[in-house]
């Protein structure tokens, strides 16, 4: 089927970011002083385990960042494109996305959560739990057949996952053996003794944990709603996976979008001092004096009004939601920009007194060049730390903002909208707990992994903090 790739603005930024990271990695590889901190990150067990978990989230997010429209069968020669914008992730999760139920159903259920009045073949009406359209639809006798079926499928998934894991572990051992120049057996023992320069043991353990969970889930997902369905009958697992992209984009782009401002203004304020410094300081004191939530709320409200009054600029819901997501990133960035700017200014104030800067001045090297060559590269570790440290906070902030109603577009699936939709059902008896639980587990896994990774990065990049943290 012909498809037309269509990049949303956020997709574009995501792929630019990926390209940038790949470029940076290649650049860093050849420079020992730049790669040294990353090697230290690689030696941190918690950091590498977290990175492994994160890479799964990133994979989901990237799959969800390739959007396309599929061709509709059209009578004329002119191709017509579907109005529905889908992503690769949607394609992978097609059974989940398409498998809509009527309303709530519990995890792995075969029947709806609420009783409904159905007309029986003989014309009588009865209040029953109707069968789900998709969940467990293949079962002839759900009462008796469900659990054995679930167990078999889960076991098959698990077995496959373990197989995959063994293949990965042997691959890693072979790779380690080649790079260290030892036998594969020695490499295997080295990995499990934690003696490899890169903590493969932690990677493999985390991989095992992820696979043990993902394997059975993947095996069950085509047949059941593993995490149940929500009010409109949408699969909760699908929602949770779709939320990942939103979280990742907010966590990364918000800092990244405003990074140039923080960097340029911070370095300039620290280097030139005087009135430039006064101006920058005034700017960030003013911005940070406004309570963050209120500034975000005000800006988002204003944007909403603007969008409502200019519908012609936003042709489809997806595009509107996407623009709103990016605007949210910018607004979040502006409120968190001041902290980084202040840090950079302080560091540059110290650096500018260093002797290599003065030596450059003694050669008459231009101010611009001194800032580019001598100051900016030496504060990049702070930028790096800020980037990873801010990430988890931003993911958490998204949930709160969406709850208040100033977060992402209500049509966009995110952790915030998931929680917001589910929390009203707390009062139901029996409780509908699975949406909340899914959001909780996915968010905890993402944020915890991000926090652990951020800690490892911070310890590796900031020698002063490493001393304090290293005593733990």
């Amino acid at each position, binding site marked *: 089927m012909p498809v037309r790739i269509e990049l949303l603005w956020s997709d574009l930024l995501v792929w630019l970011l990926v390209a940038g990271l790949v470029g940076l990695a290649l650049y860093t590889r050849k420079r020992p002083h730049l790669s040294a901190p990353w090697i230290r990150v690689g030696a941190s067990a918690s950091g590498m385990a977290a990175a492994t978990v994160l890479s799964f989230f990133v994979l989901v997010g990237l799959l969800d960042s390739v959007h396309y429209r599929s061709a509709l069968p059209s009578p004329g020669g002119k191709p017509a494109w579907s109005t529905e914008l889908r992503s690769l992730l949607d394609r992978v999760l097609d059974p989940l996305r398409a498998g809509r139920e009527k309303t709530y159903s519990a995890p792995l259920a075969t029947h709806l959560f609420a009783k409904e009045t159905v007309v029986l073949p003989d014309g009588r009406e009865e209040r029953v739990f109707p069968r789900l359209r998709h969940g467990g639809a293949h079962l002839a006798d759900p009462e008796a057949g469900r659990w054995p079926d679930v167990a078999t499928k889960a076991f098959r998934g698990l077995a496959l996952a373990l197989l995959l894991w063994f293949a990965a572990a042997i691959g890693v051992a072979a790779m380690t053996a080649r790079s260290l120049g030892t036998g594969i057996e020695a490499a295997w023992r080295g990995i499990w003794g934690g003696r490899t320069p890169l903590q493969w043991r932690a990677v493999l353990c985390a991989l095992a944990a992820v696979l043990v969970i993902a394997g059975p889930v993947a095996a069950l997902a085509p047949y059941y709603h593993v995490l149940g369905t929500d009010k409109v009958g949408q699969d909760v697992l699908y929602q949770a996976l779709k939320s990942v992209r939103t979280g990742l984009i907010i966590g990364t782009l918000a800092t990244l979008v405003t990074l140039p401002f923080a960097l340029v203004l911070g370095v300039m304020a620290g280097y030139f001092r005087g009135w430039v410094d006064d101006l920058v300081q005034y700017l960030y004191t003013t911005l940070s004096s406004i309570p963050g939530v209120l500034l975000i709320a005000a800006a988002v409200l204003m944007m909403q009004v603007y969008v409502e009054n200019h519908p012609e600029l936003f042709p489809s819901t997806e595009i509107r939601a996407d623009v709103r997501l990016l605007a949210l990133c910018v607004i979040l960035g502006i409120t968190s920009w001041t902290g980084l700017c202040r840090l950079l200014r302080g560091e540059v104030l110290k650096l500018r007194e260093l002797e290599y800067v003065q*030596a450059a001045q003694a050669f*008459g090297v231009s101010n611009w060049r001194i800032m580019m060559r001598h100051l900016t590269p030496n504060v990049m570790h702070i930028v790096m730390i800020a980037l990873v440290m801010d990430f988890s906070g931003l993911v958490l902030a998204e949930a709160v903002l969406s709850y208040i109603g100033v977060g992402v577009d209500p049509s966009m699936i995110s952790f915030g909208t998931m929680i917001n939709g589910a929390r009203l059902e707390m009062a139901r008896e029996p409780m509908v707990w699975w949406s909340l639980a899914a959001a909780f587990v996915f968010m905890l896994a993402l944020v915890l992994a991000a926090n652990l990774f951020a800690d490892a990065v911070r310890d590796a990049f900031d020698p002063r903090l490493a001393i304090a943290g290293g005593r733990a």
Partner: protein
Amino acid sequence: MTAPLLRVENLSTLVRGGAAPLRAVDGLSFEIAPGETFALVGESGCGKSMTALSIMRLLPDAGEIAGGRVELQGENLLALPESRMRDLRGHRMAMIFQEPGLSLNPVMTVGEQVAESVRRHTALRGAAADARVLELLEAVRMPDARRRAAEYPFQLSGGMKQRVMIAIALACDPALLIADEPTTALDVTVQAQVLDLLRELQQSRGMAMLLITHDLGVVAQVAQRVAVMYAGQIVETAPVPAFFAGPAHPYSRKLFASLPERAGRGRALAAIPGSVPRLDRDFAGCRFAERCDAALPQCAGTLPQWHEAGRDHVVRCHLYGSDERGVMSDERKPEPPTSPDSSLIAHHSSLLEVSGLKVWFPVRKGLLQRTVGQVRAVDGVSLSIAPGRTLGLVGESGCGKTTVGKGLLRLIEPTAGRVMVDGEDFLALRRRDLRLRRRDVQIIFQDPYASLNPRVRIGDALEEGLLALGVGVDARWRQSRIDELLAEVGLPPDVKSRYPHEFSGGQRQRIAIARALAVQPKLIVCDEPTSALDVSVQAQILNLLKRLQGERGLSYLFISHNMAVIEYMADDIAVMYLGRIVERGTVAEVMHGPRHPYTRALLAAVPVADPRHNPRGTIRLAGDLPSPLNPPSGCHFHPRCPAAMPQCREQYPGRNSWSPTQVAWCHLRD
């Protein structure tokens, strides 16, 4: 000999943190008798501070005592429970540290900090404890002790802070005082005061002292016995007179030979090649073997035993084994002089002519941030340097000597004055024109670790000046020029593609010199270029600077607080005090016939690496350097001057010529 007070036996200390643990102290043994001052001397990184901390059991979290015994009055400290150890610390053994500025709690009054120690170990409380604190502060000759006790550390000068530290240590009359580089962070005149104090206290109280220092001069002035440490081990132990009369170990000999004051002008210093080995590796033989020019075949493979080199004088060196005893007499002669006789260079015209240079920093206060005063960091300095000559600018920290160097390069914008370089006024130039003239004057800084950008390759760092000043035709020319420069400072050309973190302090300083040389300057401002380096590395750098001057006819403005280095390097000397030059003359005149009381005091305060030299009876300066914000009226020096007269208080002295070249600003001649 009586039973030793402190006996250290086979002490080993590890410092974890890197890939392999560092053996900072490796099998150390020594004894200290009651009332004796024992010096542990060595260069940075040899493990001497770790030894002190191991004895006190105050190692940082990464450190760990791996083995050995430490006995204080027969009690094995390493076996004691921590609570018992706490009873001993500050009571029977006490310690003072290198950085008095950091070693006191900044938010607690100094009196309280002394009282804390008193209360911890004695039954004194309340008024009795306060009286004891006052007594202690007076014992360390704290001026105005009662008022000072209520002050916070930031209100005291460095010297006073170190006195407070000593008072804390003395609180319970310890049997042993460990002093870890007690005067390294202090100015030379204050160092002299503190050393005198330590020596007196030690004698009057019969206290034993373990003095840890890198400065042979301090050892000579204070200690009775000395041990030389190298790479975690003691290599020589001797009574001080015997040691200074004839150091036995090749390393000790080299240390002496690399002292500028021992070499004499015009002779190259005996530098030790290479640098101290890393302590995370295993050693088979003598640790000094690879840098030793008297090494024997067995030195690399077998650890030398202790050999007698005299009465109470033992050395850990194969040369003193029974067979090779004669070898040491065949010591290499010092290298021939490398610098040209300075009189050969005609100094008719001067290359640099500074007159009336002022660098003032405004002090703003109050609601409208009005300028209420000026910190007169440099207040009317005039000096001149002829081509191929070196002017030594000497003074204590805070006297403005570094500001002079940076001011004449306009790294700090001067307030007033003229800086004529080759006939053109640097200060009158517009920014753009100044950039072109910058190639004439370059600067080398103090801290080799801060002087190279860690993110820039050595080659690129050297090219920066060439590019900025538009020197050189094309890239290939510049590359070959960089190769030449590196060769000139004794580094191989492959250094270009490497990053600064791979180099030691001495190597970095060579690179910094090459960077300055790249644009072929006529004058180089050397701002304390060796004060962050060990004495043996300092010798390498000083030799290099001398050689370059001889080859290229460079002029140096050599800024230093170290009299010996200045004496070795300079042709002329200018002495600064509180932003002004107080005396100027040729090196011989100033060093041997100082006219200004400050110069005399400065010279007298320098510890001489010769125990026969008697420091008592020489001039000792009281007090500290006043603030340049509010300099004393009249002669700035009069509050500390032993020869102050009434007129000194009223009027700044005029210029007094003592010879065609020697000038002093002092009323004494009038």
